[in-house]
């Protein structure tokens, strides 16, 4: 071992997975075991008292899962990570680590729909209030912070609006108020943006997306920077004795590790949202090619965005790198290697044109996911948002003509061949019947 700083691609292949110490296996073994034997009664006592590191039960920790966690911590530049059953479980765990009934969180409003529901319905039922701040002005977010606010939340690239968060400005506002900045980095992945470098304290992911990349397993993970002062008093869940763990004061005992230790030993233990070792293995395999895949995703996304922008059937293309995007400067700052591969565009002809477009496609998979190696498409107005009226759609920012693409790794010519069929069908649907005759 040398004092050498390894690059991102090397760490994507090696971090967290040295040859298996027990067998020498070069690939990460899948440790499918619910439980692990103790060396002795003293060893068991040390493990339960959190004084030594080791495996007890796979709901709390597992060697295959921890290999995934360490690799994610390395790639995001964090102190450590805790993996979860899904992305929603990761963000819920991060919030429950910091907030309880009577507390409040602040988030940008442009969020994945599942996150909006979790924040505004489920958390509300648990007594944790949430203010969603619309628009891109960081100062509006500052104004929403209350005395009982516990964290500030944003998505690096908002889903589905494609807005790029001003990470350093939001981090500064959070820190000026003694709050950690939690960032969902799913759409960028650490290959394109590492929010900790811009002031984020906790990064969460739906690992289901680009991290896996194969569209096979659901998983989530949160990574912590190790820089936030958890013992400063703003977060009594970390800085006061916890009845959930022998009245332990996590900040006093574990210092910079307080958040991660509580996340694992109380939140993961009590919510039970553990990642399966099988899924962790699949996600580790995905990470090996993450930097290569993201470069290829971005290359294809640029080709497709420019193709669509040149078509008369297309009213607008919302990709942050385009010169007419309001997020171009932010993308250049935070996403210099590419603004991801998920973006939206609008068809002339509204909801009916969108439906016809989707129906005509053969190669793009019509489903509700992003970040697969295969290209994906969805028309929110006729699927996830079909119960909304056109007026309600406009208000939500998810407009009737909006189509969301997740550009995959196929030959771009084949993707364009398919899109052309869809665009022709959309144009026919958009043309009034009389004009066609």
């Amino acid at each position, binding site marked *: 071992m040398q004092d050498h700083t390894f690059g991102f691609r090397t760490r994507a292949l*090696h*971090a967290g997975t040295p040859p298996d*110490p027990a067998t*020498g296996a070069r690939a990460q073994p899948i440790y499918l075991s619910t439980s692990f034997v103790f060396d002795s009664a003293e060893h068991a006592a040390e493990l339960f008292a959190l004084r030594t*590191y*080791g495996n007890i039960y796979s709901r709390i920790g597992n060697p295959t899962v921890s290999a995934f966690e360490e690799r994610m911590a390395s790639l995001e530049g964090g*102190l450590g990570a805790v993996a979860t059953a899904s992305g929603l479980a990761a963000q819920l765990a991060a919030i429950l680590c910091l907030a309880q009934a009577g507390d409040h969180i602040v988030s940008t409003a442009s969020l994945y729909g599942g996150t909006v529901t979790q924040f505004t319905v489920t958390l509300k039922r648990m007594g944790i209030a949430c203010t969603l701040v619309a628009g891109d002005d960081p100062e509006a977010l500052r104004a929403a912070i209350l005395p009982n606010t516990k964290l500030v939340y944003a998505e690096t690239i908002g889903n589905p609006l494609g807005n790029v968060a001003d990470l350093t400005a939001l981090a500064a506002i959070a820190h000026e108020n003694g709050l950690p900045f939690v960032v969902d980095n799913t759409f960028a992945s650490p290959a394109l943006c590492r929010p900790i470098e811009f002031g984020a304290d906790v990064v969460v992911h739906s690992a289901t997306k680009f991290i896996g990349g194969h569209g096979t397993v659901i998983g989530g993970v949160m990574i912590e920077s190790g820089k936030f002062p958890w013992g400063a008093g703003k977060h009594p869940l970390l800085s006061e004795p916890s009845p959930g763990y022998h009245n332990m004061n996590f900040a006093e005992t574990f210092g910079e590790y307080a958040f*991660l230790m509580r996340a694992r030993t109380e939140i993961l233990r009590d919510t039970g949202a553990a990642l399966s070792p099988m899924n962790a293995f699949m996600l580790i395999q995905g990470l090996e090619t993450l930097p290569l895949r993201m470069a290829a995703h971005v290359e294809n996304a640029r080709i497709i965005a420019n193709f669509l922008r040149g078509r008369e059937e297309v009213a607008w293309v919302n990709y942050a790198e385009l010169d007419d995007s309001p997020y171009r400067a932010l993308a250049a700052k935070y996403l210099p290697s590419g603004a991801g591969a998920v973006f939206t565009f609008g068809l002339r002809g509204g909801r009916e044109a969108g439906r016809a477009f989707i129906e005509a496609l053969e190669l793009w998979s019509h489903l509700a996911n992003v970040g697969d190696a295969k290209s994906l498409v969805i028309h929110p107005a006729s699927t996830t948002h079909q119960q909304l009226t056109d007026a309600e759609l406009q208000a939500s920012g998810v407009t009737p003509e909006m189509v969301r693409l997740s550009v995959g790794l196929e030959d771009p010519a084949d993707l364009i061949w398919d899109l052309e069929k869809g665009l022709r069908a959309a144009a026919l649907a958009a043309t009034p019947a009389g004009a066609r005759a």
Partner: protein
Amino acid sequence: MILDTISQRRDLLARSRTVAMVGASANTTRPSYFVFSYLRTKGLLDVTPINPALRDIDGVRAYPSLEAYAAERGAPDIVDVFRKPADALAVTREAVAAGARAIWYQYGVINEEAIRFADAAGLDVVVDRCIKVEAARFDGGLSIGGLNSGLISARRTPPPVRARAAR
């Protein structure tokens, strides 16, 4: 010499056997107890509490001072300092007098005068680090906890700290 690289800390732990822990606490919620207990139960290092208020911690005899420790046990390889920064210089003078080969200032124990004194006296110096975290970095503990060890290796060779402990 001030040791500020990962391999310097690894080598220090690998070549060290005895640790005299100044300010070790028997209070099982204190960080110093966590560190003491980790090093003791892992068998990685022969750790001894230095605390005039204690007879022992978990059956390991405590010495009232580094001087008393050195008189019976000889010079410690590492003096691990769990004291407030203002006390660090006095502890460092005692460590030098006891013949310590290295001094390890735990998180937050930062005293520039003490650091300069130890460095000038020829001790290896580690500042603002936790000896448990560094030991766990090299024995695989951090990794099993999902923490970023910062280590990359394609070699199966067990880490030196663990190999020595197995003897």
